[in-house]
């Protein structure tokens, strides 16, 4: 065991996989010599050589296209897109190619690629360094979408993603890289030091894709969250004192529908939380699934708490961010409605 923050845990996962499997290549903009703008690939080039971990042209479409071709040739590429906001130039490659290759070729070719990308706000990154694009991937049949919330999960899920034969979008909550940020931005910032989930096993282990984690057991209401919002939800629970069960989905495709149904069947209430803007967001899917499968258990409408339907604004970042207060208010509404 070692105590690692999330960025180190990710680095460790890459290091482990580069060492274990010569088919694993790591590349992206500023990923090689420099080690990545967030340092996720720090030291990997020095350790494994420039042919295993290298810089790419500034061309997200080109990066993903090359990764797919490498995957089809038998490698397991792990490209990085520097910010999730910049994954959009590669969206066609991900949807039309990575996601469809196995199906359309009758299983002759597939794309075992893991696309790592930091997402989310709260770092004063402005509109184009803060977005959460998970919904546009979750809708795409053939892609898996994974979002860790702790160093332990980040490493284990990333290893599982790399070993997976399907294309995986691995979204890293950049606000959690250095600490379990809970949305209380006005307080002193916590680090991962001393946090139970920062205890990360040395070497290889997997956290299976598609298994949610109960971040907090509770009886009265279920909160569905992933990434940064898991911690924010926990803060809201603390603030309100409501006995909520907080489910950390960990991957939204595949989705652990059983864990969701089990929890809401027990609590009878549900609040869905994400940082992405609300309309057409992944919360709609979650809310619908809960309603469809737990209708007769529900004692109040499923609520969604999410970013506003605006771009992520630089000056108003904390007004935009769905912090503990907004989640708390939703929890209270849900508890009142009974």
């Amino acid at each position, binding site marked *: 065991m070692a105590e690692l923050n999330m960025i180190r845990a990710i680095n460790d996962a890459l290091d482990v996989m580069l060492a274990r499997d010569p088919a694993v290549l790591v590349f992206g903009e500023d990923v090689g010599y420099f080690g990545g703008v967030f340092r996720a690939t720090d030291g990997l080039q020095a350790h494994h050589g420039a042919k295993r971990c290298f810089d790419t*042209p500034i061309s997200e479409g080109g990066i*993903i*296209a090359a990764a797919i*071709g490498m995957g089809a040739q038998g490698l397991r590429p792990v490209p990085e897109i520097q910010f999730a906001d910049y994954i959009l130039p590669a969206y066609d*490659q991900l949807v039309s190619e990575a996601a469809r290759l*196995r199906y*359309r070729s009758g299983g002759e070719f*597939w794309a075992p690629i893991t696309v790592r990308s930091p997402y989310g706000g709260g770092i004063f990154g402005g509109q184009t360094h803060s977005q959460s694009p998970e919904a546009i991937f979750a809708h795409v049949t*053939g892609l898996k979408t994974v979002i860790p919330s702790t160093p332990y999960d980040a490493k284990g899920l990333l290893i599982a993603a790399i070993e997976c034969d399907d294309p995986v979008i691995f979204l890293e909550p950049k606000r959690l890289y250095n600490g379990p940020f809970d949305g209380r931005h006005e307080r002193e910032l916590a680090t991962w030091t001393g946090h139970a989930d920062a205890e990360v096993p040395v070497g290889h282990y997997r956290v299976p894709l598609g298994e949610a984690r109960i971040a907090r057991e509770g009886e009265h209401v279920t909160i569905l969250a992933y990434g940064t919002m898991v911690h924010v939800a926990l803060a809201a629970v603390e603030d309100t004192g409501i006995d909520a069960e907080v489910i950390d989905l960990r991957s939204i495709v595949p989705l652990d529908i059983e864990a969701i149904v089990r929890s809401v069947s027990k609590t009878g209430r549900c609040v869905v939380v994400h940082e992405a803007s609300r309309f057409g967001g992944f919360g709609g899917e979650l809310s619908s699934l809960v309603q469809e499968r737990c209708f007769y258990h529900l004692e109040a409408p499923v609520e969604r708490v999410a970013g506003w339907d605006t771009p992520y604004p630089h000056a108003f970042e904390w007004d935009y961010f769905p912090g503990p207060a907004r989640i708390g208010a939703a929890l209270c509404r849900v508890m009142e409605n009974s």
Partner: protein
Amino acid sequence: MANRPPLDLHIPEPPARPGDAATFDHLDIPGAGLVRRPDPLGNAADMRDLPFELIRVLDEDGQAVGPWKPELSPDLMRKGLRAMLRTRAFDDRLFRAHRQGKTSFYMKSTGEEAIPAAQALVLESGDMCFPTYRVMGWLHARDYPLVDMVNQIFSNADDPLRGRQLPILFSARDYGFYSLSGNLGTRLGHAVGWAMASAYRGQDGIALAYSGEGTTAEGDFHEALTFAAVYRAPVIFAVTNNQWAISSFAGLAGTENTTFAGRAIGYGLPGLRVDGNDFLAVAAATQWAAERARANKGATLIEFFTYRVAGHSTSDDPTRYRPREEGESWPLGDPVERLRQHLVRLGEWDARLHEALLAELDAEVRAAVRAGEAVGTLGRSKPPLAEMFEGVFAEPDWRLLEQRREAGV
């Protein structure tokens, strides 16, 4: 700057539209054998003249001339002829099958058969081609079973792609033929990634990436060339400039004042412009680029100058946008005829053999279509419905399992 004329928007127009006389007078077609052939391992910077030449080997009389004349065995050339004729016979038959309602869609490559045929025969079995829908000749040259093609086109129970893909959007890994898709341009970068992987592993397979000339306008084209240049990937880019992209002429892809081969210069790559209706020139240019790629000198961009004789697809009627007789005035001739003439001149072919080959291919194609029909044409036979839910992921998740149940399979 007082009296300068106002700005004006230029909209490119092809030289002739329906009603006009077909013309290719604007093209400068040099004779065969005139273009120098630099050392394939040489410096790309010393080859910046080549994109503006036209490499031709077969002259008007069917003689192979000049420095690009390749060393091809008569056997290989006969195989090439066969591949082209098989392509044409198959195209004609399947086009008709579409008219008869046996399938939903078909696309011919009439006039362009030399390109994939020659490339499939001079490249090696460990190489991988990243095709367009216009290079089915590759499969014909490599003897892909015709009946499997027919079954795919009919989307019937024996369709190797399990009913999932539009007709002719094949995948044939064992034949060095990567999975096709309707999206133009998206596989160019895969070819580069594939070639990078091959190089990374120290293997010796190189990649061949096809693109129509119209498709070069996609960002993917540039991204693929950039990656290929940066990592010196062993890949050959083949732009099949057949003058048309559905209804828009090549000038609409940005070459009113340059050539597609000329794009290579900006990436520091060699660019060759080649008579695409000349089997020998296609083979020679491909061998040159392959030798370069295998020697770790990186990619080459080859523009194959050719003409799309047929309509774009079964959904198209080209007389709506170009003169009906344009194909006949195409100055580079028919690739089949030109190779046949060459073989005859060499004493390696004759009319009797030709007739026999045509008859053989006709029978082969007929038999394949009949076999496909016996399984069933579109809508009369399909793979089991469960195939709809397979292959989305390596293993289906609960959604697919539930939905499959809901669909009753």
